[in-house]
């Protein structure tokens, strides 16, 4: 796949996204989030001011000073809420993406190997998959997070790893099932006589066949990681950082009494909406993956191309 191929593929993807207002909107949202992350990383966004403890500083109502950062008021540390939320985007996206990549890579490789080779390899991998499926994922993540020393708790890679520890298992099972049924199909017989190595058959033929499913799984793994990460913080297991959306929600309820009074209401809803918007966008995009990767569903566009 060279440069010109990638560009024309991106153009095609964009054409498909533009077909419906919801998907266009979703792509727009993702775009905004990505730009925001980049802005934070290159320091175009100001750093958080020092925390100000004390009842008069936390959960202040919105104000227009230092526009736009105080339009949502302050959080539980007296710092501007909007700034805190925006500064949280890169780590969330990074963790989600990394967790998804780990989940999908491990799941796909193990599923393919087990489905294609069968025999002993299949028995061993299936056993590992079954064990992983039985472990209560969230419980394991909880325990790990509790055990981890504080410095590692904020490390993006460590968190991604913890969140994907057993998530790969159900994907592996699905990929294994598809692989073992596909390997009986005639185009696989032909791939063998054409002299393709087992690796080429697995990754070039079988994987390609499952491309829409894998793309969709990747995106859904991201949404799952985001919920996982937010959930851990919501349960109070993460260091109390302003930039963590889950922590904001947690503190809004605990310290701000957001369930009973209006004071911290913005601090409760803003992070929730930020998360929901991102998840909504991701799920909409997941649905169009089928169309992007499956040429038969693009029939309408292809006819146009022929002309």
């Amino acid at each position: 796949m060279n440069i010109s191929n990638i560009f024309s593929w991106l153009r095609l993807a964009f054409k498909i996204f533009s077909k419906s207002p919801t998907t266009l909107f979703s792509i727009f949202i993702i775009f905004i989030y990505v730009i925001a992350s980049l802005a934070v990383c290159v320091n175009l966004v100001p750093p958080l001011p020092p925390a100000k403890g004390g009842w008069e500083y936390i959960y202040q109502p919105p104000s227009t000073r230092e526009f736009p950062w105080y339009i949502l008021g302050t959080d539980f540390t007296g710092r501007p809420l909007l700034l805190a939320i925006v500064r949280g985007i890169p780590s969330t996206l990074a963790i989600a993406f990394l967790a998804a990549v780990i989940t999908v890579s491990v799941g796909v490789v193990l599923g393919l190997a087990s489905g294609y080779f069968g025999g002993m390899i299949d028995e061993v991998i299936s056993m590992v998959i079954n064990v992983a499926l039985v472990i209560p994922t969230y419980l394991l993540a909880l325990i790990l997070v509790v055990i981890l020393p504080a410095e590692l708790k904020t490390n993006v890679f460590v968190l991604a790893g913890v969140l994907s520890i057993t998530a790969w298992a159900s994907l592996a099972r699905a990929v294994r099932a598809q692989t073992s049924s596909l390997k009986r199909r005639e185009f696989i017989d032909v791939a063998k006589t054409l002299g393709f190595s087992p690796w080429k058959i697995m990754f070039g033929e079988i994987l390609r066949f499952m491309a829409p499913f894998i793309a969709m799984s990747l995106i859904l793994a991201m949404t799952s990681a985001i919920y996982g990460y937010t959930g851990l913080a919501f349960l109070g297991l993460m260091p109390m950082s302003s930039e963590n959306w889950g922590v904001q929600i947690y503190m809004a309820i605990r310290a701000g009494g957001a369930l009973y009074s209006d004071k911290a209401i913005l601090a409760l809803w803003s992070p929730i909406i930020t998360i929901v918007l991102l998840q909504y966008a991701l799920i909409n995009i997941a649905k169009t993956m089928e169309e992007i990767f499956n040429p038969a569903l693009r029939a309408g566009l292809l006819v146009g191309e022929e002309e």
Partner: protein
Amino acid sequence: MSENIIETRNIKVVFSVRKGLLKRIKFAAVDNVSISIPKGSIVGLLGESGSGKTTLGKVTLALLKPTSGEVLFQGKNVFNMSKDEFKYYRLNAQYIPQDPYASIHPFKTVKDVLTDIVMYHQLAKSNREALEMAKDVMSKAGLNPPERFLNRYPFQLSGGERQRLSIARALILKPAYIVADEPVTMLDASLKSSTIKTLRDMVNAIGSSLLFITHEITLLQFFGIKTRIGVMYLGKIVEEGYIRDVLENPMHPYTQALIAAIPIADPKARETRRLILKSTIPSPLNRPHGCVLSDRCPYAMDICRKEEPILKEVKAYHKIACHLYN
């Protein structure tokens, strides 16, 4: 004397099938079959579903390992070759499957399918050269003009066009041996002859051997009177000979039934043709004792139910496995 490109000796392929929770039943899909395919020749394998013809074809391609027996490629045992010998064999033994819908990767364009092959085996030194090779074989396979088809996906091709792509794909490596398993069965009747003609001409042009598997005996006529054919039923070869001899003088009752069943474009013929065989083909799990056809054969004698007849030469180059001729 022409060397045999492929030779199978006493091939037996036994499958086991689960019946109920714990029972497993074994049956022989191919039972003691020996065929030889000379270099540069076309051999027909005639049989219906359950005859074992596809299994035998796959065994000659090393897609399946036989339970017993040998497969020789240019005299060497295929399952006992060195890595290099096997690689040479692998590239020289290609497959054209029956189903035009299941045999091509749905997400690859025609160009991808063909250029992938030559690029993977480094037979072309550049993308441009690979494209030329693809266009060349496409045009020989009847996909003309090639430019019209290069960027199409399989779902944009008709059944006939897909089979031509399968043919192109099998022949782009110019293999010495090709197995075509019912390549035209799923095509419209009007397309069968032109597709076979393309296959025949391409195979003859590169001097390859072809094992043509089918249940329609009339199609084998297109390969010329010197074509040898074998008739299979429930895993055994029941008759073997030159196509003209077998067609004009079918000796085995099964072959006679097959020929009598061919649709003929003549309304007056309808009254004179009857069903020859009784009942319907049994499941391969329930093979009758003795001769495989003994439960359906109108001429079955006592010995047929007890003893299996051996494939013997009865006339010049015409072999048959039937107690009627002992």
